[in-house]
């Protein structure tokens, strides 16, 4: 620009400047008449400005009202005070400055300047409104926001963010470190890292973190943010929005936890659970379900219910009925059902089936399975034991055991065999009797030796348990399992318990049998005793009545007296026998020991019984050899020999009887051999028992006490008495006694050993 300093040029230049001022300049006199107007506004150009000179401000505004703002400010300026204000006129906004015009400290008018700020004001209002709206929106949504000016390290936070932080709004901008101090210490490094990575990589971030409010409360905040700025150059700002997700977080956490707990509970439960949707899909299951049904885990994820059903049903005893039952239940969605499922391997499940109701509607079906095999087995066993006990209570052992074998199959096995060992032989009871597996196993030698044993026979499992009666093996129970079954220790224990009961039953039956035999023996003894007494009684009775009532011949009278005397002795001996029996039973058989010659005793007895032997038609031969002296009871030995000889002529009438006595190795042996009817082998061990006789009492009288008493005496003397016989070939009784001599002090009375 040239610098022409002439006055005209200067005035023109000033005018140029004034006319181009983006606003208006004016001056008034004291009456507010415009003396100068310059400016350029959308409504004011140079011409209009010239026309305004000479008008009053009142005229320009269009009112004389002194309270109108423009007029009031002009008047105030005239009063000497500088006025600065905004003024709206005809849709435009002006910032106005009016000052008093001073001349020699006297107010001669006023000077005003106005700048059109309409555009700026509109922008400002819009900004204010949008910020207010943002704040409102944030407040309503509880979403806060922040902006990190990286270059200046300034973080500004929105009002709502302060509210989220629990801090009174209006905290000024702060450094990142200060801003991060509100984050929970554990989450702080992660949050800083997220911001830095976003700045570095220009990548949005999303971060859940906790904050600690001034009152110590911890809230969970979800923040999403991004980098703002050009693609090139360093990122100037990172902005983020944050909202409080504590409630959601808690709810989600609780939900997740309760789902986890539900799953854990399902898995921990002893029942197998399967949930199937109405569409047949498997909705849920637990581990126990897989275990119970032996379903591979990889299969359950792939299969639908129908596939699953067809792949597990074969395990059941009746797969078809099972499948049909399941189908029926799926056809009636509302139905509740309970059923017992029996497996081929012996397991038993309880199955509960109920509709799964979600929000009042049937969404599917819940199946739960409980393995009650143990309970069922115990129940079955208890029932079986009770049945078995009832059967075994019978004293008819044979039938009881047959019935027992019957109920033992198929419960305990497909076949049940009981081998009874009795009287040296074996007797076998088998169930089921028809269609038996051939060959059934023999009683296992372990079991015969008293031990339980499980073994295999082909593909069959076999269990053998001894029947122990009073610690002796009296039989073996052998069970053959059905093809799928294998015996376990529990089976073995159970069968051992059964074996105990069977053994007890056998023992009871035997005790009962022996008790009955004892009773029979006693009854027989009493009958024989009555007969033995009745004989002499009859003779004496007849003799006495004859002697008293009839005039008998001398010979007849003598006979009668003889008979009375004879029978008197016989009754005396009988009473002695009974007394000896009593003493022998109670161990009070007294022995009077002295040196005795066996030869003498034998000969004395034979000579005394000569009449009886002759009457029986028995020729008795006596052979003695060697030194037959011993320290014995002579009277008792006579009794022994008498009993043996009586026995011989009783059972071998008309046949010769041979008696030998000899010394053998410091013992004296006496043999009495008859040629009578002999003795059945089965009777041999019992022939010396009380009341025992090898033949029916009806044919052979006598108490059956003779041999018993003889044996008792011989035992008492420290000797032995044995018998050797075969039916039809007579019998030999062999008596052996120790041939010890007394040394004189030893004489006296001794207790028998029994």
């Amino acid at each position: 620009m040239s610098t022409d300093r002439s006055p005209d040029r200067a005035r023109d230049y000033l005018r140029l400047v004034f006319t181009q001022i983006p606003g208006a300049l004016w001056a008034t006199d004291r009456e507010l008449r415009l003396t100068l107007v310059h400016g350029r506004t959308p409504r004011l150009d140079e011409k209009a400005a010239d026309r305004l000179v000479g008008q009053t401000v009142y005229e320009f505004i269009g009112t004389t009202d002194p309270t109108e703002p423009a007029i009031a400010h002009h008047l105030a300026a005239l009063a000497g005070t500088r006025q600065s204000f905004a003024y709206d006129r005809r849709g435009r906004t002006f910032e106005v400055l009016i000052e008093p015009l001073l001349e020699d400290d006297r107010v001669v008018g006023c000077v005003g300047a106005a700048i059109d700020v309409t555009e700026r004001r509109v922008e400002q209002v819009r900004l204010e409104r949008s910020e207010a709206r943002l704040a409102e929106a944030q407040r309503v949504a509880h979403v806060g926001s922040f902006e990190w000016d990286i270059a200046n390290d300034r973080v500004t936070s929105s009002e709502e963010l302060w509210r989220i932080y629990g801090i009174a709004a209006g905290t000024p901008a702060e450094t990142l470190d200060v801003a991060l101090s509100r984050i929970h210490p554990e989450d702080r490094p992660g949050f800083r890292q997220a911001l830095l990575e976003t700045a570095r990589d220009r990548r949005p971030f999303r971060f859940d973190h906790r904050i600690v409010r001034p009152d110590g409360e911890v809230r969970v905040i979800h923040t999403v943010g991004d980098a703002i700025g050009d693609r090139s150059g360093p990122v100037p700002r990172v902005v983020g929005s944050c909202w409080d997700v504590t409630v959601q977080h808690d709810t989600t956490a609780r939900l997740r936890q309760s789902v986890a707990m539900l799953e854990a509970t399902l898995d921990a439960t002893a029942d197998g659970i399967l949930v199937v949707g109405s569409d047949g899909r498997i909705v849920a299951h637990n581990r126990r379900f897989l275990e119970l049904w032996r379903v591979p885990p990889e299969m359950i994820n792939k299969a639908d219910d129908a596939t699953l059903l067809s792949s597990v049903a074969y395990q059941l005893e009746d797969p078809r009925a099972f499948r049909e039952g399941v189908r029926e239940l799926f056809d009636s969605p509302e139905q509740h059902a309970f059923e017992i499922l029996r497996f081929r391997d012996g397991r038993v499940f309880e199955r509960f089936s109920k509709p799964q109701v979600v929000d009042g509607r049937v969404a599917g079906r819940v199946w739960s399975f409980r393995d009650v095999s143990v309970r069922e087995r115990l129940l079955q066993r208890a029932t079986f034991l009770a049945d078995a006990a009832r059967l075994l209570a019978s004293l008819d052992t044979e039938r009881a055991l047959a019935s027992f074998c019957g109920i033992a199959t198929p419960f305990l096995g497909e076949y049940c065999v009981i081998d009874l060992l009795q009287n040296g032989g074996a007797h076998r009871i088998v169930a089921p009797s028809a269609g038996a597996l051939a060959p059934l196993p023999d009683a296992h030698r372990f079991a015969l030796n008293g031990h339980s044993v499980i073994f295999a026979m082909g593909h069959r499992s076999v269990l053998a348990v001894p029947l122990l009666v009073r610690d002796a093996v009296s039989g073996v129970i052998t069970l053959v399992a059905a093809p799928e079954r294998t015996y376990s220790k529990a089976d073995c224990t159970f069968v051992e318990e059964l074996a105990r009961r069977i053994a007890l039953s056998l023992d009871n039956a035997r005790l009962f049998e022996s008790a009955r035999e004892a009773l029979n023996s006693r009854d027989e003894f009493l009958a024989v005793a009555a007969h033995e007494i009745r004989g002499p009684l009859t003779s004496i009775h007849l003799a006495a009545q004859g002697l008293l009532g009839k005039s008998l011949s001398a010979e007849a009278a003598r006979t009668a007296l003889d008979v009375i005397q004879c029978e008197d002795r016989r009754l005396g001996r009988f009473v002695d026998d009974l007394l000896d029996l009593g003493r022998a039973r109670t161990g009070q058989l007294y022995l009077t020991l002295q040196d005795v010659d066996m030869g003498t005793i034998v000969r004395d007895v034979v000579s005394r019984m000569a009449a009886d032997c002759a009457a029986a038609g028995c020729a008795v031969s006596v052979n003695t050899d060697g030194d037959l002296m011993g320290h014995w009871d002579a009277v008792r030995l006579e009794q022994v020999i008498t009993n043996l000889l009586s026995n011989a002529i009783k059972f071998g009438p008309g046949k010769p009887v041979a008696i030998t006595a000899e010394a053998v190795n410091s013992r004296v042996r006496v043999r009495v051999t008859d040629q009578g009817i002999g003795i059945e082998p089965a009777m041999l061990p019992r022939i010396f028992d009380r009341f025992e006789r090898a033949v029916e009492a009806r044919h052979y009288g006598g108490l059956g006490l003779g041999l018993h008493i003889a044996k008792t005496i011989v035992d008492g003397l420290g000797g032995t008495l044995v018998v050797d016989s075969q039916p039809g070939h007579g019998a030999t009784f062999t008596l052996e006694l120790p041939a010890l001599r007394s040394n004189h002090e030893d004489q006296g009375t001794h207790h028998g050993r029994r």
Partner: protein
Amino acid sequence: MVVDDDDNVRRMMCVMLEAEGYATIGARDGLDALERMRDVSPSLVFVDLMMPRMDGENLIHSMRADAALSAIPIAIMSGQTHAAAAWPAETRLVKPVELDDLLSVADRYSRDLPRAE
């Protein structure tokens, strides 16, 4: 005939019957009795029940089965009253036998028979 394995009983009965004038035969058991009945046909048989070799019951059955012996009257002598009651015999005597009963039975079955005076 008196059939009893007890020597004294048999002996005493025979003595008492003979004292009344009867002829008697003793037998020690059933077999002995049957053997002796081949030679002599008795007009009355007293039978004891409990005897060796052949007891009274078998003897009675054998006699009843034998046409030659079936008509001979039998008197059973026994202590076992109930058992004896079931057997086919004309008379039962309970041991110990009363002498009067014995003689009246003998008398009843032998009126027509000659007595050894």
